[in-house]
């Protein structure tokens, strides 16, 4: 039993990491209907910038974080100026292709600016096992993972209030629903896009910090975007809580499957479990667990 709890907990913690990336996708998808393929690379780019500012310019941690946030906002502004502005009212697939291009541009930029070697990211986030958990329950959990879970929870609570209760949050959702109607009530599409890409950039930074602290800042970080995809299918592309719960289910599911089913099929379930689960969801509940129901009036 204890072993089961430990597997579940470690699955949840891994899931939180997926959720953090998925969250960035949801934000942009909610507000602009774009599936932003570059979200994973944005996390990488943010982490690279953070490490770069600390190592190359000797910024203290807090200044490096603020500096990185400024860079991510500037990036959002540039993306709106150079890319989105010219693609208004285009098909979703065209916008998707544009973000695919963006992913490569960002990856290249990260390489040129900060180099391609694996970097250690040390923000002083506690490392190692949590002694308290180990002593009182005999359960092994990384402190970093607890830290990531708490951060994710705070961020989600914050975003949920922002989306539901504020003018800008409503404007974001309005833009996602109907461009023309949003324009007619005086919402500026350009401003909204800059805001939402900035917020997604900051979420990417948090994801980048967590992944970077765990396994170093390296270019394979951009591949975690792939794991976020089944998370989104599970949670629904438009739901912030869905991204979190989807991430947890995938994280826990694949750990449990690996540990308990793995021996029977020769292991490596972790690699494909998420995608099979997503496939099942696509068949039976395409809007995901929490996504807005797809309503079409005929």
């Amino acid at each position, binding site marked *: 039993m204890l072993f089961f709890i430990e597997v579940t907990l470690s699955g949840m913690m891994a899931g939180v990491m997926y959720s953090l990336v998925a969250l960035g996708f949801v934000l942009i998808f909610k507000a602009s209907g774009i599936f932003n393929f570059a979200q994973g690379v944005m996390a990488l780019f943010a982490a690279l910038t953070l490490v770069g500012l600390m190592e190359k310019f000797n910024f203290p941690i807090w200044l490096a974080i603020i500096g990185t946030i400024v860079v991510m906002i500037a990036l959002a502004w540039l993306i709106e100026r150079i890319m989105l502005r010219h693609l208004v009212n285009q098909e979703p697939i065209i916008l998707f292709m544009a973000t695919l291009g963006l992913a490569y541009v960002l990856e290249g930029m990260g390489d040129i600016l900060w180099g391609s070697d694996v970097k250690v990211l040390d923000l002083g986030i506690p490392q190692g096992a949590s002694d308290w958990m180990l002593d009182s329950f005999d359960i092994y959990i990384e402190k970093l993972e607890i830290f990531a879970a708490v951060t994710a929870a705070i961020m989600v609570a914050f975003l949920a209030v922002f989306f539901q209760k504020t003018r800008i949050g409503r404007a974001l959702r309005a833009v996602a629903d109907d461009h023309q109607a949003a324009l007619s009530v005086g*919402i500026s599409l350009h401003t909204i896009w800059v805001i939402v890409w900035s917020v997604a950039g900051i979420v990417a930074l948090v994801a980048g910090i967590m992944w970077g602290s765990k396994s170093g800042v390296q270019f394979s970080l951009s591949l975690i975007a792939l794991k976020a995809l089944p998370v989104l299918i599970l949670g629904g592309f438009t739901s912030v809580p869905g991204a979190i719960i989807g991430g947890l289910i995938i994280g826990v599911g694949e750990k449990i499957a690996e540990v308990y089913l793995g021996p029977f099929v020769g292991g490596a379930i972790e690699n494909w479990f998420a995608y099979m689960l997503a496939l099942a969801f696509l068949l039976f509940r395409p809007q995901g667990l929490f996504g807005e129901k797809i309503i079409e009036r005929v």
Partner: protein
Amino acid sequence: MNQQSSPETILAVENISLSFGVMKVLDSISFDIRRGEIRSIIGPNGAGKSSMLNVINGFYHPQEGSITFKGETRKQMAPHVAANHGIARTFQNIALFKGMSTLDNIMTGRNLKMKTNLFWQALHIGPARVEELENREAAEKIIDFLGIQAIRKKPVGKLPYGLQKRVELGRALAAEPELLLLDEPMAGMNSEEKEDMCRFVLDVNSEFGTTIALIEHDMGVVMDLSDRVLVLDYGKQLADGVPDEVRNNQDVIDAYLGVPHEH
């Protein structure tokens, strides 16, 4: 309906021509709207009525002509300029935010009334909170006015067509517009819903003093509600005047009923 006492012109369009490629959609159209009146635009399908509204609120940019709104003359409008200066509208094919509740839809109409910046909004405290509550009150008043309390929290995508039209009117009213553009507010409604909508249009006009530009196909409705009627046909201006004049205009009758062939 007090144009006798103050015949001030709120909007004047002059020689507006709009084409998409070789298609001439509007051909040198000129007319004005007086403050406080209900001004209808009628015409057969494809006459350019919706295009005219789109020009007024800045979705379409005409190649020629000018638009004077509240004394300021522009070659063309932009949607945010129109919204900022007090023009609100509804759409022929309802354009609501389908995933959002009725209340949230109406609150988006108050977008321009709310000024607190991203910082306060993000924290959701202080001025942002006060502002949110004030505007919420204004939105609730509109919900009362339209009698849609029962569907306040429902996502509008699930509402029946007639109610969606009403919510869309509510969103436009929430902006407290000086000029309200209604694109076929009664299309597809049954007679009871039409009556309700007529009453709302009249009430908005008389209670709030809102000037209304109305596109409508139901001639009975148009003749009853309107102070003046503009008739378009194939992008050309066919007639302009009070309902009785328009009704008896030979060109209008021909356009609607067809011209008999001469032998």
